[in-house]
C-alpha cells in the first residue's frame, strides 16, 4: 500500500541537510510520496527505513533498460494513466521481427533495411528501437549465429525470442554483453530463463496467459530476478487492451508489484497495414514495446509520429524550431509571413500558406511555444522582438524585398516593427483560414 508523505517523513533522518536536492526532509518525503524522486538521493537514511520505504518509494512501474550505449532504450517508469494528468515519459519502443531462418545476404539486406528506418521529425532523429530475432529455425546454433550478425550489423538493441533455454544460452553467450531483452520466461522454462538472464544481467520478459497466470508467474520469476518486462500473453486486441490497461491501473493506483514492470505487446495481423493499426492501439494504451513485422518506411513513419505526439509533455507547449521555414519553391521575391513557434499555430499557418499554392517564407519567431496573442501579451512577440529576429534569422539574405505579413491580431505592433526593422509591414488576417484569400489578393 502506498505511504503518505507524512508516513515517509517519520522514517527519514530529519537532518534537513538538503543533499537530496530538496529544501527539507519533509519536502523530500512529499516528493517521494509522489514518486518524483528516489530514496537513494538521501545519504543518511537508515537501513531499517530503507527496508520499510523501499517498496513504497519505488516507482510504480520499474525502469528497465534494453541495449547498451547508443542503442540503449529506457522503458517503464510511468506514473500516470492519462497523459493529461502529467505526461508519459518513456516512448513505446518499436521492435521489428527478424526470423533466424534468414541468413547470409538475405539477413544482411534485412538488417540494412531496418537500419534505414530512421526519420527526421521536428528537428529530432526518430527510428525504430529494437530488432526482435525469433528462433523460428528451432536450432540453437542458427539462432546464436543470427543474433550475432544482427548485433554486429544492426543499429538497434535486440530482443531474443526463444523459449528454448539451450538456444537462449547460446544466443546470450554470443550477445549477452549487449544487454538484449530475453524473451521469454514461461511457466515451463522460467527457472532456467531467469538464471540465464541473471547470469548475463539482461532484462527478461515474462509471458503469462491472462492476468492471473501472469501475476503468479511474475512473482515466481521476481524471486530469482527483478529486471522484468511483462507479456500478458493475450493476443486478441480487445482482450489485450483490457488486460494491459489493468496492469497499468493496478501498478499505478495500487502499486500491485507483480505488474510493476513495462509491458511488451505483439501485433497479430497477417498484413503490415493492419499490424500498424494494431500497433497504434498499443502505443496509445500502455505498451512499452510493440513487436511487429511491418518494416517499410511508409508503414513505420506514422507510428513514430503517433508516438512522439502522445509522449509529448502536455505541460510544455510543443514548439517548432524558431527559424525561417520555406514553403514550396521559394525565390528572392516570395512573400514573407511571420508567426509564433507554437506548433499548433505554426502548422495551421503553414497549412493555409501551402494551400494558397504561392511559395512563401514563414518566420517562426522564438516565443517559447506560445500562441500569437499570448506571446504578444507576454512581450515575446512585439515589434522589437520580431525586428531582432528578422536581423538574425537570415531572411534578409533570402529575399530582395523588405515586406512582411504579421498576424491580424497584433496589428498594433505594425508601427514599432516598421520603425525598428526598416521592413514594410502588412497586416494579415486575424484567423489563419483567411490566408489563402489574403495571399491570392496580394501576391498572386
Amino acid at each position: 500500500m502506498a505511504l503518505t508523505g507524512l508516513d515517509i517523513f517519520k522514517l527519514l533522518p530529519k537532518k534537513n541537510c538538503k543533499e537530496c536536492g530538496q529544501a527539507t526532509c519533509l519536502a523530500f518525503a512529499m516528493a517521494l510520496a509522489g514518486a518524483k524522486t528516489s530514496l537513494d538521493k538521501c545519504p543518511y537514511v537508515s537501513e531499517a527505513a530503507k527496508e520499510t520505504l523501499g517498496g513504497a518509494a519505488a516507482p510504480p512501474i520499474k525502469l528497465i533498460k534494453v541495449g547498451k550505449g547508443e542503442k540503449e532504450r529506457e522503458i517503464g517508469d510511468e506514473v500516470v494513466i492519462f497523459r493529461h494528468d502529467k505526461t508519459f515519459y518513456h516512448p513505446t519502443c518499436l521492435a521489428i521481427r527478424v526470423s533466424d531462418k534468414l541468413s547470409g545476404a538475405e539477413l544482411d539486406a534485412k538488417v540494412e533495411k531496418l537500419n534505414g528506418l530512421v526519420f527526421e521529425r521536428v528537428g529530432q532523429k526518430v527510428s525504430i528501437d529494437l530488432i526482435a530475432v525469433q528462433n523460428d529455425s528451432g536450432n540453437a546454433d542458427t539462432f546464436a549465429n543470427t543474433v550475432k550478425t544482427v548485433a554486429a550489423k544492426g543499429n538497434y538493441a535486440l530482443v531474443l525470442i526463444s523459449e528454448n533455454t539451450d538456444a537462449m544460452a547460446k544466443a546470450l553467450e554470443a550477445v549477452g554483453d549487449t544487454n538484449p531483452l530475453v524473451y521469454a520466461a514461461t511457466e515451463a522454462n522460467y527457472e532456467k530463463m531467469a538464471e540465464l538472464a541473471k547470469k548475463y544481467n539482461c532484462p527478461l520478459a515474462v509471458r503469462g496467459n491472462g492476468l492471473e497466470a501472469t501475476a503468479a508467474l511474475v512473482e515466481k520469476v521476481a524471486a530469482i530476478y527483478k529486471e522484468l518486462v511483462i507479456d500478458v500473453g493475450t493476443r486478441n486486441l480487445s482482450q489485450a487492451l483490457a488486460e494491459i490497461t489493468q496492469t497499468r491501473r493496478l501498478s499505478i493506483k495500487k502499486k500491485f508489484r507483480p505488474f510493476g514492470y513495462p509491458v511488451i505487446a505483439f501485433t497479430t495481423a497477417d498484413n503490415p497495414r493492419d499490424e500498424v493499426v494494431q500497433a497504434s492501439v498499443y502505443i496509445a494504451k500502455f505498451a512499452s514495446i510493440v513487436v511487429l513485422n511491418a518494416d517499410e518506411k511508409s508503414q513505420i513513419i506514422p507510428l513514430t509520429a503517433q508516438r512522439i505526439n502522445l509522449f509529448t509533455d502536455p505541460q510544455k507547449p510543443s514548439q517548432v524550431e524558431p527559424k525561417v521555414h520555406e514553403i514550396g519553391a521559394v525565390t528572392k521575391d516570395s512573400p514573407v509571413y511571420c508567426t509564433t513557434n507554437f506548433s499548433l499555430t505554426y502548422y495551421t499557418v503553414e497549412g493555409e500558406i501551402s494551400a494558397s499554392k504561392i511559395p512563401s517564407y514563414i518566420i517562426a519567431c522564438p516565443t517559447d511555444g506560445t500562441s500569437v496573442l499570448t506571446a504578444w501579451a507576454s512581450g515575446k512577440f512585439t515589434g522589437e522582438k520580431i525586428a531582432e529576429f528578422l536581423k538574425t534569422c537570415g531572411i534578409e539574405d533570402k529575399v530582395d524585398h523588405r515586406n512582411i505579413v504579421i498576424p491580424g491580431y497584433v496589428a498594433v505592433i505594425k508601427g514599432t516593427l516598421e520603425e525598428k526593422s526598416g521592413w514594410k509591414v502588412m497586416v494579415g488576417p486575424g484567423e489563419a483560414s483567411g490566408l489563402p484569400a489574403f495571399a491570392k489578393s496580394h501576391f498572386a
Partner: protein
Amino acid sequence: MAVQVLKDRNPGKLTTVTLGATKEQGGTRTKTITVGGDACLPFLHFEGEIPNRPVIAMEVFDRAPVEWNDELKNALGDVINDPAAWAKKCVEEWGADMIFLRLQSADPELGNSSPEKCVQTVKSVLAAVGVPVAVVGCKIDEIDNKVISAVAEACAGENLLLGFATQDNYNTIVAACMVHKHTVIAQSPLDINICKQLNILITEMGIPADRIIIDPSIGGLGYGIEYSYSIGERGRLGALQGDKMLSMPTIGTVGFEAWKAKEANVSAEEFPGWGDQAERGILWEAITASTLIQSGMSIAVMRHPEAVKLVKKNIEELMVPSSL
C-alpha cells in the same frame, strides 16, 4: 498475490444519439445510425456497456476536390465529379456507415452555388444513399447560415447532421435543426471549456442533448493530435462522471486533417526517406483515426477507401467483448 481487477464505477455515460430518420420517423432513410451510450472508457468492455460502435462517415464534396493529391483522387475515381455517385460508391463499395457532405461550392471562390443549388445537391445525395447524411457548409458564416437553413427546411424530418454551430455563430443553425428536426454539430476550437460552454448555450435554446454531436476540432497525426487525444479523454472522463454537457458523442474530421499533412502528400521521389506515398497516405489517415478512436471519438469522417477499410477492421476487433 491474487489479482483484484480494478473496475471504475461510472455514474454517467455518453448520450445516445440517433442520426437519420426512416419513413416511419418522418424521413426517407432506409437505415439510421445510433452512436454513444458508452458507459466506459473506449473499448473497456469489462467495465461498462458499449451499445454502439464508433462509425465511419465518408466525406463527399459538392465540387471536384481538384486540390487533393492524385493518389487519393485516383483511389476514389471519377465519382469525385458527382456527389451523388460518390456518396453511393462510399456506401455500396467502401462500406461507409454514413455520408459527410461538404457544400464547399457555396464559397464564392469555389463556385458561389446558391442555397437552391446546394439543396438540390443534398437531395441528390439523399436519393442516392439510404444511410444518414451529415451536411456542412463552406465555413463562411453568412453564407452557411443561408445554405444550411435552406437545406434544413427542404429536408425537414430527415434528421440530417448539420454543421457547424460555433460559439460565434450558433443561433440560426440550431434553430433550423430544432424546427426541421435535425441534429446539430457543435464545434469548438480544441478547447474543452468552450466545448462545454457551447453545449450549454445551445441546449438553453431548447434543443435536446440527444440532438447534439460534439466536434471538438482535431489535430491530425503529427500536427497536434495529442491535444485532441487529451481533450477526447478528458471529455469522456467528464461524461462518465456525469457531466451532461460533455456527454454528447464526438465527431472528428480525420480525413481533412490527415490529408493536410506533408507526410500524406509528398512523393517518394521528393522524400525518399519517407517511403511509398500511397501507403504512407493511407496509413496517415488510418492512424489519425485509430488514435482518436482510442481517445473516445464516435464518428470518424474519412476520405480514402483503404484507410476506411483498415479502421473498420480495427473497430471490429476492438468491439469483441473482453472480460476480466
